């Protein structure tokens, strides 16, 4: 890892960890703030030694667009939850489980990870594995697979990569 590149990620770790400390403590006296500063410095030092202060643990490059994506994903979550709750109350005969391959168009590993985790987060569909650039998806019914093959989620995740 190049030193000059990692400075950006170190600064962002310090900011995020300090915000978490202040948000959880709420005390602004000297003792607790200095304890917080020591903790943040120690955690960042350890993360630096572990070589995990990089774009994989802190994907800063997508941070602005991902808020829009989260809002869209929340809307999708509500819809798919209602479908699964309906199936729960209709009983086991209303599900028709299926395993299928779903192609992805993302170029980066991070894009594929976001897509696969979004599929798993939505009830009704779970990513079992990634095989090259296809995902192996288990769904409660073929409707879930048909929705994924429609490709709206795929396109939205791809847009996060740009």
């Amino acid at each position, binding site marked *: 890892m190049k030193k000059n590149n990692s400075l950006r990620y170190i600064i962002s770790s310090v900011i995020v960890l300090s915000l*978490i400390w202040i948000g*959880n403590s709420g005390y602004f006296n000297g003792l607790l703030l200095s304890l917080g500063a020591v903790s943040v410095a120690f955690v960042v030092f350890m993360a630096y030694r572990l070589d995990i202060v990089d774009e994989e643990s802190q994907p800063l490059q997508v941070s602005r667009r991902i808020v829009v994506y989260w809002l869209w994903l929340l809307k999708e979550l509500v819809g798919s939850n209602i479908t699964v*709750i309906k199936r729960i109350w209709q009983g086991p005969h209303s599900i*028709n*489980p299926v395993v299928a391959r779903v192609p992805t168009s993302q170029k980066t590993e991070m894009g594929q990870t976001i897509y696969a985790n979004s599929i798993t987060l939505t*009830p009704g569909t779970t990513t079992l594995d990634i095989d090259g650039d296809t995902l192996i998806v*288990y769904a409660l019914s073929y409707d879930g697979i048909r929705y994924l093959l429609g490709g709206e989620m795929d396109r939205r995740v791809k847009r996060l990569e740009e």
Partner: protein
Amino acid sequence: MSVFIDGLSWALLILGGFICVSGGIGMHRFPDFFSRMHAASVTDTLGGTLVLFGLMLQTDGQYLVLVKLILVLLFILLTSPTGSHALAKAALHGGLRPKLGSQQDKQDADVLNNFGRANASETDKNKE
């Protein structure tokens, strides 16, 4: 105004509670491990989110509590797919296979043979 917020909060809490109970019932009604996992994820995502939103409306100006509830929501939404994926993959590697329905494509079902202990897939073949 505060009556309105209180009412909204209670509506969210009750709806969230109903969804969590539905998830629990689904865990018992669905036939196999993989479909039960989906029922559990209902509780994780919409049920938990609604209960937490309902609690956020109860904070009444205590911003520290609000920040903590938002952190809880973020951690649940970030860790639940990781946990589901780990469970599903561990089950597949242990030799457990989902019960598949009538719309299953035969070729796609073959991908499941890439997982798990060799002897587990052999015993499956012997049964056939």
